[in-house]
């Protein structure tokens, strides 16, 4: 369901918060992806 934002401030606080959470998750995920991609490089 679409959320209602009454001010630009509300909108920015919400979207920025979601982006920060996603970036945190990405930092964890990218380590896993890198390990998956390169773990057999030395074989």
């Amino acid at each position: 369901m679409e959320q209602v934002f009454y001010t630009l401030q509300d909108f920015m606080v919400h979207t920025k918060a979601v982006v920060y959470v996603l970036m945190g998750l990405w930092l964890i995920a990218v380590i896993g992806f890198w390990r998956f991609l390169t773990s057999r490089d030395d074989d």
Partner: protein
Amino acid sequence: MSDHAATDSKSYLTTFNVIAGIIVIFGLIATIMRFTGGLGAVTNLSDYNPWGIWIGFDLLCGVALAAGGYVTSAACYIFGMKRFHSAVRPAILTGFLGYSLVFLALLYDVGRPFRLVLAYPFVVQQGTSSLLFEVGLCVALYLNVLFLEFCPAALEWLGIRKLRDILVKITMVLTIFGVVLSTLHQSSLGALYLIAPAKLHPLWYSQYIPVYFFVSSVIAGLSMVLFESTLAHKYFHHKMDETHLGESDGLTMGFGKAAAIVLAGYFTIKVIGIAADNNWHHLATGWGAWYLVELIGFIALPCFLFAMGVRDGNLKLIRYTAAWTVLGIIVNRLNVSVIAFNYHLPAADRYFPHFWEIVTSVFIVTVGILAYRFIVNNMPVLYEHPEYKEEH
């Protein structure tokens, strides 16, 4: 003598030649109709949809898929990955032909093509505040850069050593110039759509669309080099020398790995784009389902498959994934320019290409394939010219 003539005529009557011949005949008919009857005679373009598949497919996909030229030459000459050297010439050739065909498609699409030929927008009436001007200027300059980058192969074939040596000496300058121009116009092609926030569906419209276009062009370039290399191995294997054949597996692994990494980054910024514009609710709609097909089926899936291929040393998987990724880039460009553009219009006003528009696009691609075949059969592209070995 008559036997020889019979053999010659038989060798030309291949399935490929017959199909290509039919397409060329239809293409010439479309060309005559376009330049005698105008755009209205052969297109479904309207004020709602002034850009059809000649822009959406021929130009946007053409430019993206021709990115292999700058990606490969940058990897080899700027980042010093000399193990990819044998891939540079085929990639430059693909890029040069791609951009030439973009120019050819533009001649069909613009209202006054003779002005384009005379460089009118650059010399007489510059629209310096327009993104389209920047795109046009960059594409025109880059086409010349690609021409100069490809010239050494043609000059080796023609035996003009002096000029060839001069051009080889300025390879680094041309590469840097090519990377700068590509960065500019690949992103600006996306930026063109920033002017249409009400027309392009919110899932595809984003303030980051120039970044999406640039990053996806790198993916397109890497995948296209792999895809073209696969086809070349199948149809021009006899033309390849030992160096080319020897470097092929390393190239597939290296480019597959790079594609996996860039696809992972591209997936991330696409999701960040949804979050930044708070477009999550659109994902639950029909358009959202189509967007997820693109995001998961053509970005996340090939990212995983490339990574799997690299991890397991599965070259076949990497090559198939490259073909799938090329298709994904085409889907993305068509989504932005045609499918999700004017999404709010009733079905009767939506754009669907005219039969002759499709014929013209197929004709232009066929011309490219024929030119590629002629060049690869005659010039030292997939092998080193015996007189210039170890000189690159």
